[in-house]
């Protein structure tokens, strides 16, 4: 069990009042709030050891480099990767694009397989790659219960499949996909996983999952904005060519040729976001102290309660699995006759922050037959009281719209 009092105290923003009400922050799938430890680390970096890394001999340069590499070590350990397999980018989106651009130089024909539940950032890069290369773009469907349709997925994978691009957890449905299983069935294709929604909630072991690329964003897991991680399996990272050219990623440059730096620097051109990477290291330490098992247990507890409560609300349609084991605590819904935007606005008048709109998953919206959804997503500082506030808030939405 999590010590909720202690956790809530770690997040200064939870004391902010919204429209005179207690903040009930349920937009964690968009970005999480930051614990004071992470905020303090940012301040500490700028006040005590700001310098460029990997190039300065002076003390500050050494301190900054050390802290930066310590963060890399934390991230590597967090997903059971080697340090040289961790590439820092600016967000999950950049990580996925980096994968797409480097792979684009490798592959020529065939097909790329993805799913209908992808966020645009793991859909459009592959769609565009297919258009450029005249490759076939194949999109696996979902089941009636909002889980991935594995049969459909496997039927789309064949000998000509060059890339499988799949999300670990859907940012709309909350569905968890069995990445390990797909890796086994996926054959020789490169396997690229979008872990933006899973890394904050689930224990990830890249060696067990056996994937080639895996990307996520720091800001959804207590870290600052402006930092993402792309894991690239060592043999793949060694074989592929770098994406961006410039400082840091170079070993030797001659007039006619250049030798790349070793991993992971080969993929990190230019001065990185040092401060935010350092603070992200602190975010990972925070998650490690809490324990990913406890994070998941809390998530399951909230999911169970939320599923029970939401089911009882007349006119509410939930888009996501109804079994706790198949999902994380992301709840997308619509209320009959009320647009998600209005739902979100009225909830906000009660201090409740939820997302509304297409959630950067327009193909999925079309598949669900809707234009938008309201989405409440929970994290470790959310408790039963927050869920209760949401349920009461939804009742208010219905009152304002005079529906029952």
């Amino acid at each position: 069990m999590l010590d909720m009092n202690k956790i809530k105290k770690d997040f200064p923003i939870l004391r902010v009042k919204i429209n005179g009400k207690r903040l009930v922050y349920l937009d964690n799938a968009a970005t999480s709030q930051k614990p004071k430890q992470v905020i303090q680390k940012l301040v500490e970096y700028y006040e005590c050891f700001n310098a460029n890394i990997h190039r300065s001999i002076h003390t500050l340069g050494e301190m900054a480099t050390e802290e930066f590499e310590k963060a890399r070590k934390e991230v590597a350990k967090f997903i059971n990767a080697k340090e040289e397999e961790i590439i820092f980018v600016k967000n999950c989106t950049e990580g996925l694009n980096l994968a797409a651009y480097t792979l684009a130089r490798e592959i020529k024909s065939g097909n790329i397989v993805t799913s209908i539940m992808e966020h645009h950032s793991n859909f459009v890069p592959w769609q565009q790659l297919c258009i450029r290369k005249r490759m076939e773009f194949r999109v696996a469907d979902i089941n009636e219960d909002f889980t991935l349709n594995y049969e459909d997925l496997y039927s789309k994978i064949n000998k000509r499949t060059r890339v499988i691009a799949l999300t670990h957890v859907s940012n709309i449905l909350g569905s968890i996909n069995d990445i390990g299983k797909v890796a086994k069935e996926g054959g020789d294709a490169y396997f690229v996983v979008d872990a933006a929604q899973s890394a904050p909630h689930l224990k990830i072991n890249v060696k067990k999952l056996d994937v080639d690329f895996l990307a996520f964003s720091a800001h959804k897991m207590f870290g600052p904005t402006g930092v993402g991680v792309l894991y690239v399996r060592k043999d793949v990272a060694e074989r592929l060519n770098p994406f961006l050219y410039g400082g840091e990623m170079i070993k030797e440059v001659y007039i006619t040729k250049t030798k790349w730096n070793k991993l992971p620097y080969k993929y990190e051109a230019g001065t990185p976001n040092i401060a935010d990477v350092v603070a992200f290291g602190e975010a990972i330490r925070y998650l490690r102290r809490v324990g990913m098992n406890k994070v998941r247990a809390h998530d399951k507890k909230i999911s169970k309660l939320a599923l029970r409560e939401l089911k009882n609300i007349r006119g509410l349609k939930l888009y996501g699995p109804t079994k706790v084991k198949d999902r994380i605590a992301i709840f997308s819904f619509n209320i009959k006759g009320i647009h998600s935007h209005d739902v979100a606005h009225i909830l906000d008048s009660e201090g409740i922050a939820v997302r509304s709109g297409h959630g950067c998953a327009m193909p999925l919206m079309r598949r669900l037959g809707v234009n938008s959804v309201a989405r409440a997503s929970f994290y470790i500082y959310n408790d039963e009281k927050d869920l209760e506030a949401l349920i009461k808030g939804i009742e208010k939405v219905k009152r304002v719209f005079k529906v029952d």
Partner: protein
Amino acid sequence: MIEEIYAERILDHYRNPRNYGKLKKYDVKARDVNIPCGDEIEIFVKMKGNKIGKIKFTGHGCAISQAAASILSEIAKDLPKKEIEKMSYEDFIKKHLKINITYRRFGCATLALRVLKNALKKL
């Protein structure tokens, strides 16, 4: 108070939009979306001289965007083209929607007027 935004009149226009549908015969049409929430409005206009003769709209979206389109369709009829061109978004909200709109709903509230202005530019 949130109830002031979702006033009876707004909810009524949202649920019973006036002039909803398409015109078979029209002089201009235009369509646009409000990116953050995906509201969508398409407006058809048939002119009568320099005035708006017939106007109809279709679309989907939040109560504010749809009610605004319905209200706009009512006030725009018989108005000279110039009046629409001149009409500021703030004035439209204040005089015609008559609700207090903050920055986050400005796009919803003004989508229809933006589409109508764009349609008239094509004339």
